C-alpha cells in the first residue's frame, strides 16, 4: 500500500505543478473553458484517488470543488470571483494535505467546512482575503527533504540506462575473459574485482528501478472480483498473497490482461452458484487465491479457486465436438494432455456464452500473450475441488533464458520457454523414421515431426541423425515438434537485441545476443520457423502410438539433489557422493590464493562452486561430498529438491564442469561432473579415511549397541561379510574372529574377568572399550 500511496502523492503533486499555471490563467479569465476543464480534471482525479485511499476530508473537499465546477461547466452557474477563490483555496488545501500525507504528519486541522460552504451555490461568499489567509495558516511551509522523495521518469530513459548497464556487464565479461587469457596481473585483479562488484550493484539498482511491486496489479483485483461476482450472482472472496514480489513494470502490464482473463474464467466457470456449493458441502462463498512468488529468474503467479474444477470428460467431448480431436484420440488422451486442451485455439468450456467470458477469446490467447513475453502457462485441476492456473513469467523482458545449440559451423540460441525435452539419438528411448522427405521421431509414445536444423538453415551438410541431439519444442498452439541439431552446447541468459530489417526478413531469427565469450549469435524464432514448415496448424493433433509390447528394463533409479548454485544456475549433484548437507557460517570460509576452503566440524575441506566469500549472507549451504578417500564441499545458495534422475542426460560441450544437463520439472538443470570435481580438487582434499572396525553383523547387540558407539568414536563399521580389511575386529565372548583384521578386540558379556580370555573387556565398560580402540588406532597409525 505504501507504494501506491507514494504514487498517489507523486501523481497529485505532479498534477498540482502542471495546473499551477492554469490556475493563474483561470483566475485572470474565469470564462476560459479550457482552463476550467483542466482544473475540473484535476479535482475529479483527486476525488477518485481519495475514495480509494480513504481520505474522507480530501474527498469531501475535492467533491465540493468538483460539483461547483461541473455546474459551471454545465452553464448552471457563473464562475464568480467568490467561486474562483473558493476553488483555488480548495486546491491549495489539497496541496497542503498531500504534503502532510507524504510526510506522515496529521492532516492540517479544520477549516474544511468554511471552504466547502464557500462553494455552495447560495452559500455566503466570504471575501477572498479570508479564504486566502485560511489557506496560508494551513502551514504551507516547505517540507522539502522530509520523507522519501520520489521522482517520475519516462520509461524510455530508464530503458536507455538499462541498455547501457547491460552493455557494461557484457564489456566487463569480455574484459574478464581477456584478463584470464593473459594471466591477470595481481595488481589489476583487485581493482577489476572492485569495478566488477560495483557494476553488479549498479546493475541491481538499475534493474530494481524498473521493478514494481505486484501490489499495483493486485490492488485492482478485489474490485474486479466484486463486480464480476455480483454480475454473475456468485459470492466470491479473493485472497491475495505475494504483493511484495517485484516485477518489471512492463512485465506487470503484460501480465494484467491474462490474469484478468483467468480470474474471469475462475469466477464464471470455476466457482459454482451458492446453492450448488452448499449442495456440494462447500462454503457458500467461493475463494479465489492469487499468489505470487519468485523462483530464480522467474515469477510464478498462481490463481487457484475452490470451484467445481475442470471435468475431463466434458473437455474431451467438447474437443471432439469442436473437431479438434477424433473420438478415439480423445479417449486415449491422458489427464495432462486433456487439461492442455483448454489452451487449444477457439476452445471454450462454457456451456452458455456469458457476458463475462466465453466470447471466443480463450485460454489460447492467454497462453500466446504469456509466451510472447517468454513465459509459460500450465493448469491443474481436480474435479469438484478446484482449478489452479500457473503463470510463469521472466523477471525482465530483455533477458531470455535459453540454450545454445550447434549445427554445422553455426551456434544458435533457442529460447527456453519452448523447450520441453532434450534427447540424443543414441538414447534407446527414441527411434527415427524417414517418411517421404520428412523425419519423424517416436519418443515417449508420441510420433513427433522433426526438422533438420541444417536443412532449415540451408547449410551444406545435413545433421547426422545417428549422432544428433533432438530438442523438443512445444508451440503456443500445443503442437510439438523436434529440431535435430549437432550438439547442445550450454545454458545461457541471452540479452536480446533487435535485428536489423535485412536479417529480420529472413524470418527465422528473433534477435541477436552476445555469449559470455563475446561471440555474437542469433536467436531462433521458434514460432516463425514452425509456421514456415507448416508445423503450427490449428487442429493439428499429436498422433498417439501404441504402447510398445515390452517395457525396457528399468535401471535402478538414481537420484539427484537439485540446488541453486552461486552463479545463479540451477545445478544437480548425484546423490551417491553426498555425505551431508551443512550450513556453514561465512566466517568459516577462507580464501587462500585461488582456492576456497571451509571449516566444517573441525575438518578443513576444499569448497567448490563459489569464487569469493559471500558478503551478503551469513551462512551458506555446503554439500559434503566424498569419493571414499577424499572429501570436499560444494557451495549452494539454496537446496531446491531431490528428484529422480531420468535417463536422458544430455552432454554439454560448453562447460566442462558439468556432466550434462537434464530437465527437472521443465527447467534445465546442469549436472555437476563429480568425477572431474574430484579430479580437480580431490588432490587438495584432506585425506579422511576413517579407521574401520569389523563387527559380527548377525549379532543384534553388536549392530544395535556397539555399532553406534564405534561410529561415534570415528570408525567405519564393517559387517563380517565385508571383504575390506579392518583395522580392528570386535569378537564377542568365545566366538572365533572373522576375516583378517589389524587387531582383535574381545568383548565379554559378564562383568567379571574371564580366565579364558584375560584381555577381554566387559561389553558395557565404555571407557575401557574406547581406550582399547584408541590404543588400536594409535598403533595402527
Amino acid at each position, binding site marked *: 500500500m505504501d507504494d501506491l500511496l507514494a504514487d498517489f502523492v507523486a501523481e497529485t503533486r505532479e498534477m498540482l505543478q502542471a495546473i499551477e499555471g492554469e490556475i493563474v490563467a483561470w483566475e485572470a479569465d474565469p470564462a476560459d473553458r479550457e482552463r476550467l476543464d483542466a482544473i475540473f480534471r484535476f479535482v475529479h482525479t483527486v476525488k477518485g484517488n481519495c475514495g480509494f485511499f480513504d481520505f474522507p476530508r480530501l474527498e469531501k473537499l475535492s467533491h465540493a470543488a468538483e460539483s461547483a465546477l461541473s455546474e459551471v461547466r454545465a452553464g448552471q452557474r457563473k464562475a464568480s470571483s467568490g467561486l474562483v477563490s473558493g476553488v483555488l483555496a480548495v486546491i491549495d488545501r489539497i496541496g497542503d494535505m498531500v504534503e502532510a500525507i507524504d510526510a506522515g504528519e496529521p492532516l492540517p486541522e479544520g477549516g474544511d467546512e468554511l471552504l466547502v460552504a464557500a462553494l455552495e451555490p447560495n452559500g455566503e461568499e466570504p471575501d477572498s482575503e479570508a479564504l486566502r489567509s485560511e489557506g496560508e495558516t494551513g502551514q504551507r511551509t516547505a517540507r522539502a527533504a522530509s520523507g522519501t522523495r520520489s521522482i517520475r521518469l519516462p520509461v524510455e530513459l530508464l530503458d536507455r540506462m538499462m541498455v547501457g548497464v547491460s552493455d557494461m556487464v557484457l564489456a566487463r565479461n569480455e574484459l574478464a575473459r581477456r584478463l584470464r587469457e593473459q594471466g591477470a596481473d595481481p595488481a589489476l585483479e583487485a581493482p577489476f574485482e572492485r569495478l566488477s562488484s560495483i557494476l553488479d550493484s549498479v546493475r541491481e539498482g538499475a534493474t530494481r528501478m524498473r521493478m514494481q511491486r505486484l501490489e499495483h496489479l493486485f490492488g485492482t483485483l478485489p474490485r474486479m472480483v466484486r463486480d464480476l461476482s455480483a454480475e454473475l450472482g456468485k459470492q466470491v472472496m479473493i485472497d491475495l498473497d505475494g504483493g511484495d514480489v517485484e516485477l518489471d513494470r512492463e512485465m506487470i502490464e503484460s501480465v494484467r490482461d491474462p490474469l484478468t482473463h483467468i480470474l474471469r474464467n475462475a469466477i464464471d466457470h470455476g466457482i459454482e452458484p451458492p446453492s450448488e456449493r452448499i449442495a456440494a458441502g462447500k462454503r457458500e462463498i467461493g475463494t479465489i487465491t492469487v499468489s505470487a512468488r519468485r523462483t530464480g529468474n522467474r515469477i510464478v503467479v498462481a490463481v487457484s479457486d475452490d470451484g467445481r474444477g475442470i471435468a475431463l470428460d466434458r473437455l474431451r467431448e467438447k474437443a471432439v465436438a469442436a473437431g479438434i480431436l477424433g473420438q478415439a484420440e480423445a479417449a486415449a488422451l491422458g489427464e495432462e494432455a486433456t487439461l492442455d486442451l483448454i489452451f487449444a485455439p477457439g476452445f471454450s468450456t462454457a456451456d452458455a456464452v456469458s457476458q463475462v467470458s466465453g466470447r471466443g477469446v480463450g485460454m489460447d490467447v492467454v497462453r500466446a500473450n504469456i509466451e510472447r513475453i517468454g513465459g509459460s502457462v500450465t493448469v491443474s485441476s481436480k474435479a469438484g475441488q478446484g482449478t489452479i492456473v500457473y503463470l510463469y513469467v521472466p523477471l525482465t523482458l530483455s533477458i531470455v533464458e535459453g540454450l545454445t545449440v550447434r549445427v554445422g559451423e553455426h551456434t544458435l540460441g533457442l529460447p527456453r520457454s519452448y523447450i520441453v525435452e532434450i534427447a540424443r539419438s543414441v538414447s534407446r528411448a527414441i527411434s527415427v523414421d524417414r517418411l517421404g522427405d520428412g523425419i519423424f521421431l517416436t519418443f515417449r509414445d508420441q510420433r513427433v515431426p522433426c526438422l533438420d536444423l541444417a536443412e532449415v538453415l540451408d547449410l551444406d551438410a545435413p545433421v547426422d541423425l545417428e549422432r544428433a541431439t533432438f530438442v523438443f519444442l512445444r508451440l503456443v498452439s500445443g503442437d510439438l515438434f523436434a529440431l535435430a541439431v549437432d550438439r547442445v552446447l550450454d545454458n545461457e541468459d541471452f540479452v536480446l537485441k533487435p535485428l536489423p530489417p535485412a*536479417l529480420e*526478413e529472413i524470418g527465422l531469427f528473433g534477435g541477436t545476443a552476445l555469449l559470455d565469450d563475446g561471440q555474437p549469435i542469433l536467436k531462433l524464432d521458434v514460432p516463425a520457423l514452425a509456421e514456415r514448415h507448416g508445423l503450427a496448424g490449428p487442429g493439428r493433433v499429436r498422433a498417439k502410438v501404441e504402447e510398445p509390447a515390452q517395457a525396457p528394463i528399468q535401471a535402478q533409479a538414481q537420484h539427484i539433489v537439485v540446488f541453486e548454485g552461486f552463479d545463479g544456475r540451477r545445478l544437480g549433484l548425484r546423490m551417491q557422493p553426498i555425505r551431508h548437507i551443512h550450513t556453514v557460517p561465512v566466517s568459516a570460509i577462507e580464501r587462500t590464493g585461488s582456492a576456497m576452503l571451509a571449516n566444517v566440524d573441525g575438518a578443513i575441506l576444499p569448497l567448490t562452486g563459489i569464487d569469493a566469500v559471500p558478503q551478503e549472507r551469513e551462512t551458506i549451504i555446503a554439500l559434503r561430498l566424498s569419493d571414499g578417500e577424499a572429501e570436499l564441499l560444494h557451495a549452494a545458495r539454496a537446496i531446491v529438491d531431490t528428484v529422480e534422475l531420468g535417463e536422458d542426460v544430455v552432454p554439454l560441450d560448453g562447460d566442462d564442469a558439468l556432466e550434462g544437463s537434464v530437465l527437472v520439472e521443465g527447467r534445465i538443470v546442469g549436472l555437476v561432473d563429480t568425477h572431474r570435481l574430484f579430479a580437480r580438487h580431490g588432490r587438495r582434499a584432506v585425506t579422511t579415511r576413517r579407521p574401520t572396525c569389523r563387527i559380527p553383523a548377525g549379532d543384534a547387540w553388536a549392530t544395535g549397541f556397539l555399532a553406534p558407539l564405534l561410529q561415534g568414536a570415528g570408525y567405519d563399521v564393517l559387517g563380517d561379510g565385508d571383504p575390506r580389511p579392518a583395522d580392528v575386529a570386535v569378537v564377542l565372548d568365545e566366538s572365533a574372529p572373522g576375516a583378517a583384521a589389524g587387531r582383535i578386540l574381545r568383548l565379554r558379556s559378564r562383568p567379571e574377568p574371564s580366565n579364558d580370555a584375560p584381555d577381554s573387556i566387559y561389553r558395557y565398560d565404555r571407557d575401557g572399550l574406547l581406550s582399547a580402540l584408541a590404543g588400536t588406532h594409535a598403533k595402527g597409525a
Partner: protein
Amino acid sequence: MDDLLLLTRIAGRPAAFRAVDVRSIIELGTITPVPRAPDFVAGITALRSRALTVIDARRILGARGGRDSADDRSPVVDIAGHSYALLVDKVADVVAGVGALSPVGPTLGPRWSACAQGMIETAAGPAIVMDVPALITGPQKAAA
C-alpha cells in the same frame, strides 16, 4: 560542400561517406555468417558489447572476388537504431569536399546510382558520395 568526407574504395572505385554519417571506424574481427541471409549481408560481428550487422558494400556495388587489400578497417554507420559495419576495399583518408555536390548521370550504372547522393571533388580526386540508408537497403529496393 564543406563537410568532411571519409574516402574509401569500394569495388575498386572511390566512394566517399559524409563524416557525420559515420559513427566510427573499427577493426573488423571475426564475422559470424548468418544462414539464409541475403548475399550482401556478410554476417554479424561483435563491437564492444553489441552485435553489428556487416554489410558487404563491395558486393552491393558489384565487386567480384575477394577483397584486394588487407585492410580490416570498416566504417560503422547507424541507421534507424541499428548499427552496421560496411565491408569496403579500404579506408583511405578523411578529406574535405571541394565545391558543391553535383548530380550523377545514368552512366554510373544501376548499382551505383541506386545508392549515390552525388559526385564531389576532393583533393584526392572526384568521388561518389554514398547515400548510406540506400546502401543498407539498396539491393532490396532495386529488386522491388
